[in-house]
């Protein structure tokens, strides 16, 4: 299904998806007011009604909805973890802008090619073998030594070269392991327990997540248990069969 056919009926907008995109980019519709989840649901309904899955179209939808989500999250999220954002907001916006402009440029070019091909509809070229008397490439006519053998060794030599290793320094490599966080938690447990906030004080998001894995592991092993008084409250971690420590003040 072409995305252009996806008709939406949302609170703030009703019409084709393509138009919604255009209006959002022109700021005629406030993205913050668009329930993207409803767009997804509408799309899923369409897919179901159609009963077949066009992977190209689905991919296109995923890309567009992801771009909208990225844009919307930029609009609504207070602030991301400093460590995960190495671009200044302005740089990030500029990069996003350049990417959107570039993609738009080639989408335009793609439409042009579509039209060109359609305009050529009905023009056919002949494809027929040459009459026998004109067929070329008969062995006796081919000159010996037309190609240089060095071309072969050069090609093979080129294939032997290992490509240079990719420079991955710009990627954040997780340096924290479950084993390391396990021993950290066990040290805290030996002192009678701790709150989760204490266990991850000053840590980055990845470390927080790995610490949670370690905690689950300790629970599975029967070494630790925990208590959380309410949603989003701090988690008190304690050794199994030990009394909970005084609850830490939630930050």
């Amino acid at each position, binding site marked *: 299904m*072409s995305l252009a056919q996806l008709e939406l009926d949302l609170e703030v907008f009703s019409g084709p998806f393509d138009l919604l995109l255009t209006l959002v*980019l*022109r*700021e005629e519709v406030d993205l*913050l007011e668009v*329930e*993207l*989840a409803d767009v997804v649901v509408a799309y899923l309904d369409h897919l179901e009604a159609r009963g077949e899955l066009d992977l*190209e*179209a689905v*991919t*296109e939808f*995923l890309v567009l909805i992801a*771009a909208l*989500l990225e*844009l919307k999250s*930029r*609009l*609504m*999220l*207070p*602030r991301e973890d400093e460590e995960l954002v190495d671009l*200044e*907001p*302005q740089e990030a*916006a*500029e990069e*996003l*802008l350049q990417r959107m*402009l*570039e*993609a*738009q*440029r*080639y*989408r*335009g*070019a*793609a439409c*042009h*090619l*579509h039209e*060109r*091909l*359609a305009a*050529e*509809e*009905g*023009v*056919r*070229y*002949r*494809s*027929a073998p*040459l*009459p026998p008397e004109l067929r070329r490439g008969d062995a006796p006519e081919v000159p010996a030594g037309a190609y240089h053998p060095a071309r072969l060794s050069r090609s093979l030599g*080129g294939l032997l070269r290992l*490509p*240079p290793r*990719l420079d991955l320094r710009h990627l954040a490599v997780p340096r924290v392991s479950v084993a390391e966080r396990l021993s950290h938690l066990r040290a805290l447990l030996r002192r009678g327990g701790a709150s989760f906030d204490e266990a991850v004080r000053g840590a980055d998001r990845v470390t927080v997540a790995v610490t949670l894995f370690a905690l689950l592991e300790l629970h599975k092993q029967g070494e630790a248990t925990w208590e959380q008084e309410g949603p989003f409250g701090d988690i008190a971690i304690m050794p199994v069969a030990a009394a909970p420590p005084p609850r830490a003040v939630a930050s």
Partner: protein
Amino acid sequence: MSGVDELERVLEALLFLSPDPVAVPELAEAAEVEVGEVEAALAALEERCAPGARGLVVRRVAGGVTLATDPVAEPAARRLLARPRTTPLTPAQAETLAIVAYLQPVSRPEITRIRGVSAESASTTLLERGLVEEAGRSQFGAVLLRTTPLFLRLFGLESLESLPDVGAWDPSPEDEAQLRDRLLRAGEARAGLGADSAMPAPDG
């Protein structure tokens, strides 16, 4: 070779036989005449094959001259040859082809970066259909792609230079400025919000 008439006949025969478009100098060499004479004879042939005059038309594509059928015969050709002419391109294929056409030689990872989504299946199809081909390797060993003469022929292009400037599809400066403003404001709004402020309900 005596007289333009005979040259015109010879050229028509050469174009009929040749499986690919033939460059004018090649025609001149084969007919043993000057390039200027070939051009004059081609002009006469083009006139006699003007749209509506015959079943064939003269086309200048892929850096050469070739004969093709007039679209008037398309329905009958479809019935006789029992095969459709060309399958239309999917949007993904058209986008990939556009990127190759304008940026060639270009590698698949580069295409992926521009599209923001994998170009694997689209470029494989384009390779299979003979619209693009390999053109050596990048310094990192990734295969580079370029368009083929068949691409030029199927799209009725004389050369890659006949493609319009890709800048033609840039958004207007106003649209771009608006988009930039918008993104910058979003960035500022985010930077201005403290960590303690409540998070809006995640309705996204």
